[in-house]
């Protein structure tokens, strides 16, 4: 059984995602020590500095989606993730956002479980402000596609097939599930797919611990060997040996 990490990275006019991916890959190589496959486009590929032994898969990514970031509407290339089942060369895949930084090998725990598909359904706001999860954003509770662990299996294939369908007809699903946001979000597409494939009922395809997260409003001051230093308002704090999802996309610019 092969195991590896699958990353998606496409630079946009506003965000140099390749710089985030470089940091992310360094952390994976240090802590998870797994093979990595990076799905990117040619324009972004050209910007990467040498990253050691990793696999590249070059695609022409779909465009057109946007997101809100620090009060602005910016370009967002997030439509390729539905192809992860086909893009992954591994039996067990950790599909990860390139703004998720591992400082432990905790994710390895979830590779050989009885579940073919796992992701987070809860987040932990490290500032303690609980400003990430809103109320009544949709009738089906959000899941976080940031870290998705799946095994090549009938169920996982069905999940990704359904995600493709949901993505294609997202306007309908957005209305059906009363999703508050106008743009396409993988988080909701994954939530709907799992909800429907589990018989429109509650299911347990969740990583048991919440995902540690720092919201858009939080600035990352520094990334050290063991964690990140972050600032929110007038408060500064650090994480220590904890995997973290960072929403600040600008700290890598120096």
């Amino acid at each position: 059984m092969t195991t590896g990490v699958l990353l998606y990275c496409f630079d946009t006019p506003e965000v140099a995602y390749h710089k985030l991916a470089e940091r992310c890959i360094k952390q994976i190589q240090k802590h998870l020590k797994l093979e990595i496959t990076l799905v990117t486009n040619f324009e972004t590929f050209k910007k990467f500095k040498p990253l050691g032994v990793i696999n590249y898969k070059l695609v022409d990514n779909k465009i057109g989606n946007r997101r809100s970031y620090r009060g602005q509407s910016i370009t967002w290339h997030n439509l390729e993730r539905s192809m992860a089942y086909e893009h992954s060369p591994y039996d067990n895949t950790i599909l990860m956002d390139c703004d998720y930084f591992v400082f432990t090998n905790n994710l390895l725990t979830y590779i050989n479980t009885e579940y073919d598909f796992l992701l987070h359904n809860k987040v932990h706001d490290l500032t303690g402000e609980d400003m990430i999860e809103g109320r009544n954003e949709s009738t089906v509770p959000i899941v976080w596609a940031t870290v998705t662990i799946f095994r090549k299996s009938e169920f996982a294939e069905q999940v990704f097939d359904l995600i493709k369908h949901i993505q294609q007809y997202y306007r309908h699903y957005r209305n059906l599930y009363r999703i508050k946001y106008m743009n396409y979000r993988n988080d909701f597409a994954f939530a709907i797919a799992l909800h429907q494939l589990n018989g429109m009922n509650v299911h347990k395809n969740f990583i048991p611990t919440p995902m540690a997260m720092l919201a858009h409003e939080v600035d990352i001051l520094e990334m050290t060997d063991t964690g990140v230093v972050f600032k929110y308002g007038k408060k500064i704090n650090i994480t220590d040996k904890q995997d973290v999802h960072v929403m600040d996309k600008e700290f890598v610019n120096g």
Partner: protein
Amino acid sequence: MDRGYVWFAQNNSTTDYIKLSKLLADSIKKYNKHNQVCIITNEVVEYDNFDRVVLLKKDYSEEQEWKMNNEWQVFNLTPFKHTIKLEADMLFTANTDWWWNYLHQHNMVFSHHVRCYRDKTITHTPYRRLFERNNLPNVYNGLTYFRKSRQAQTFYNLCEDIMLNWSAVRNKFLVNCHDEQPTTDVVYALALKIQDPLNELCVKYNWFNFMHNKSAVNGLTRAFINDQYLYPMQIAEKIYVGGYRQSRIFHYYNKSIPEELNARIF
């Protein structure tokens, strides 16, 4: 075993509870093998799926719009030895035959707490502030099991005393209660607290509760209208609320839901 489902069905100026009862009886018959149904009412009704229709000898709710003052009579009027008491504005969505195997071992089983459309157990709602203020057990009369027993008889005698002496009970026993007429849930909770203050007789089954289709139970803020936002619909024979397939007893607050479901069959 002599067992069945019983509920009260008395129409008022706004709601035809007999009509709702027919739908409930239909749903019980559809899903259950043990499906004896009895309604207690104040008018003669003929309907194939009502196995028994018991007429009230004395209607204590004659003057009331919200007719709840007869509820204590269920112990005397039920034709069954083992009774599950329901409310008319409910629908069954799954088989419950297996319940009897657990329930018949006890004198009384109350449903504690309710479920939201996502099948999560909801323990606190703004509708139950009086219960919290008075430290009453969070029971719902809409789903109660009892067998003919001294315990059940004592319980319903207490309910009778509370209901027929409501203004005195309200002023002397309850804190911050301003209900002009007794509501069955409060009466049940108070009677239970008087009868079993230490919960020694309490039997709690996690599965013995229903989905309560009210906005605060479903976690909606006041900005949302429950049935517009969650849009209950029927696909084949299954009821879906907010995209979730319902598998508990579905207790609706909006009495036009059956018609709306009927208009939304896919």
